[in-house]
């Protein structure tokens, strides 16, 4: 494949300001079980080549699943025509931040290749876990295992040549307690498909689906007869799984520099973290430290190089509460006079790289979880996402959680259903007065982050530990 890619790049070299070519070959295996019965065993392979050219200061991109030499040359020609069309209306020539030439490779370190694990073993795990959840009013149980192996080859006219193999494993279980006119759901380890990591099958063994099946079924049954979450303003502790999505929506997206520059305006929206706020804006309390770290072992947003050939790195986005950095691509970093921090990623060969979250992490604090809860007289412990929504500047958010537990005089108490909490991003992060320590810290994998037109789904990670927030508006969905 390398030879044919290089041949295509050579064909383009004299006619472009810059070009890169990416070959992506992705294998996926998804197993789904419902109520102890296999409902899907899907395997897929998807491969192709994307060619991105910068001509006359404007971008063109064309992609194809047909990998012969003639098809790639035709696709290269098409990318040139598209770039010429782009140059019909431009404000200024696109320029790229400087990047060194990299000839390198990266492979996700794994212990057990998930694609080599016996299919029957994988099915059996989900069959047993979903059967175990069918207790009392739990009439529907679901389990999923999901594995990806992605080979990438990147070549650019700047001489970079990067080979990567990324392996991802994920899984989760869900119990639905159902009675006339209502159902309640509990998921483990996280909602909406479970937890994911760049890891082999050892990740699935570590998350212990079977061992947690009965507990979440019990909680789903409890929720069905629980009172709705009370309305008002109260102190809350947010568990790691829900906090991962809070970080995702209220920090991860607004620090994407392309959003800040208006490139997502007609679709996903903009950002309140405008350029004038960089290094001048108090985003949260001094306890709040947030990084983008694509080097974090096992994070779902971990890789060797992004899809522009920039090495994975670690950047502070928020330091001691102050907003200090954006996620950048080569094109947008140039506008700030910076180097790219390596976050331009494409869903696959048929999409262009966009600025995407890597692992966006709320760094751990110094508290034990019982200290966070112990210092609340009346409040709530909330975890496991059920619903999310945030405005187009990423300020007014509202989340629903599967689970809410009363905190009374520093102790966890009864369970509430249908909890929601709402806030305004900087006010919310300023209300943070405690983050639990490394012992509770986990990198959650979120495999469904959407952005761009045409749409791109990206796999990202979030390191979090439970944290406390004072005087937050809570209520219940109806």
């Amino acid at each position, binding site marked *: 494949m390398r030879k044919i890619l290089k041949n295509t790049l050579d064909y383009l070299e004299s006619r472009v300001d810059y070009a890169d070519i990416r070959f992506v070959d992705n294998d996926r295996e*998804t197993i*789904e079980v*419902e109520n102890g*019965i*296999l409902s*899907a*065993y*899907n*395997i897929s*392979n*998807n491969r192709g080549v994307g060619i991105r050219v910068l001509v006359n200061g*404007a*971008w063109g991109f*064309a*992609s*194809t*699943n047909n*990998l012969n030499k003639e098809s790639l040359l035709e696709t290269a020609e*098409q990318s040139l*025509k*598209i770039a*010429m*069309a*782009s140059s*019909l*209306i*431009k*404000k200024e020539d696109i320029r790229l931040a400087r990047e060194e030439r990299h000839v390198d490779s990266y492979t996700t370190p794994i212990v057990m290749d998930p694609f080599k694990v016996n*299919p*029957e073993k994988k*099915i059996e795990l989900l*069959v047993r876990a979903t059967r175990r959840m069918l207790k009392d009013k739990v*009439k*529907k149980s679901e389990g999923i295992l999901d594995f990806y192996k992605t080979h990438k080859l990147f070549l650019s006219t700047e001489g970079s040549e990067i080979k990567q193999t990324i392996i991802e494993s994920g899984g989760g279980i869900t119990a*639905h307690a159902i009675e*006339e*006119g*209502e*159902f309640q759901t509990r998921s483990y380890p996280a909602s909406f498909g479970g937890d994911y990591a760049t890891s082999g099958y050892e990740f699935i063994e570590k998350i212990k689906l079977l061992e947690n099946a009965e507990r979440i079924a019990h909680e789903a049954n409890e929720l069905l007869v629980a009172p709705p979450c009370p309305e008002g303003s109260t102190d809350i502790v947010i568990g790691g799984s829900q906090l991962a999505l809070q970080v995702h929506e209220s920090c991860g997206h607004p620090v994407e520099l392309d959003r800040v520059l*208006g*490139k997502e*305006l*007609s*679709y996903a*929206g903009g950002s309140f973290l405008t350029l004038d706020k960089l290094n001048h804006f108090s985003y949260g309390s001094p306890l709040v430290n947030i990084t983008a770290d694509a080097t974090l072992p096992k994070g779902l947003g971990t890789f060797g190089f992004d899809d522009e050939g920039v090495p994975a790195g670690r950047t502070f986005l928020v330091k001691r509460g102050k907003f200090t950095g954006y996620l950048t691509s080569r094109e947008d970093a140039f506008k700030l006079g910076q180097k790219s921090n390596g976050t331009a990623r494409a869903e696959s060969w*048929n999409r*262009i790289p966009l600025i995407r979250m890597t692992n966006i992490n709320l760094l751990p604090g110094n508290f034990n979880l019982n200290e966070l809860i112990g210092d609340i007289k009346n409040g709530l412990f909330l975890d496991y996402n059920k*619903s*999310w*929504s945030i*405005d*187009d500047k990423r*300020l*007014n958010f*509202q989340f629903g959680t599967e689970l809410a537990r009363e905190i009374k005089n520093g102790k966890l108490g009864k369970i509430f259903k249908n909890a*929601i909490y709402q806030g*305004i991003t900087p006010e919310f992060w300023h209300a943070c007065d405690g983050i639990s320590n490394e012992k509770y810290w986990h990198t959650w994998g979120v495999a469904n982050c959407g952005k761009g037109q*045409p749409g791109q789904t990206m796999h990202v990670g979030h390191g979090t530990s439970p944290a406390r927030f004072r005087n937050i508006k809570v209520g219940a*969905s*109806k």
Partner: protein
Amino acid sequence: MKDITFWKNFIKKIKKELKVLDFEMVAIESNSGLTRFTQSYIHQNVAEKNLDLTFKVINKDRISTVKLNTLDESEVKKTVKRAIELSEIMPVLDYHYCLLEPQIYKIKSQFSEKTENFTPLDRAQKIVQLVERIGQKGYESSGALETGIETLIVANSEGVFAFDRKTTVDFNTVITKNNSTAYHSFVSSEINHLNIKRICDELLNTAFRNLNQVEIQPGNYTVILSPEAVAEILSETGYAGFDGKLIMEKKSFISGKQGKKLFPESITISDDPFDKLTMPIPFDFVGYPRGKVDLIKNGVIVDGVYDHLTALKYNKNCTGNTLPPESASMGAASFNIAMKQGEDQLEDMILNTEKGVYINRFHYVNMLNPMSIELTGMTKDGTFLIENGQLTKAIKNMRFNTSVVDLLKSVDMISRERQTKPGFVGPVVAPYIRTNHFIFSSKTNF
């Protein structure tokens, strides 16, 4: 793109490869281009040629599904062989999987040669027209214009062979000047129907009003929703309320309510490929012919839509709403949601509203409670206060937490005019509606 003869021959080869085993095949061959612009210049411009080829192998009620994106003979053979191997170790289903028999299709997708032949340069020129018109009034525009062609082939070992080709045009734009914004979306099969001049006039009309936004307090309001906003609500309702699988699992608000009158007489919602304003597909992803399915008729809950698997499992009739094989476990989807028109004119709806809010568009809508279809989301790009029958002031963006069931129960005016807007899995045909139940739960300062 490969023609019908190629695919007929291809299926013969697959039959040979699979010998006595049953199979279903779905192939989607696509060729599309999308031009994206922001602040009045093109910043992304892409093209894609692709193929999705999925085989479901049925081996005595043991099923495996494999997918690839090449027609390379050795790769196809290898993948089919893998599907056979996998099917042998799969557990047996808890119901008998029957293949569909050959069908007759009455509908064809819409196809436009103009759209098929629309080039990146043509797309750029359309965008130049928009940017220049909007720019003359000092506004900047952002958005995307996508044109594409897609061939869908569904076949099985019982002799089903369904072939269809369609074109699509998908356009959206937001225009901005300081806090003044407006939004428009357009979906069609025909590029010639994309009338940039008319869209610019509508955008500027909204944007000129959308100035000096004021705050209002959260609470229950009478609202008039645009077709764009209604389409979003109907998409969410279709997904969470009318999927037959959820109904059978008692996870839908209509479970057990079939035949009950929940809504005013004026509410009729269907999945209707025959609606004049929709963009139909002739068959679903196992080859069932598409037909009209009443979801709510004259205020009475009728039933939902059923996919092939759910129909087999629960002894129901498949309604031609089966999803592609890799999404089979999700149940069924309404591909052509359409809400029946009313008798009212938008102008009269506003004129007859003493105090209310007009909503042009929602942002980031998500489900809070599927059993009441309680949704949350934000208003955006043109929300206006209605006072004494007139749009008086623009309103800052508001968050809503509101139940679609309660919203539809309180609908008292529906427009004659309907528009076709993009939905989750297909276009949605929606009118303007007025409802006396809409809960704003919090506000923003912009």
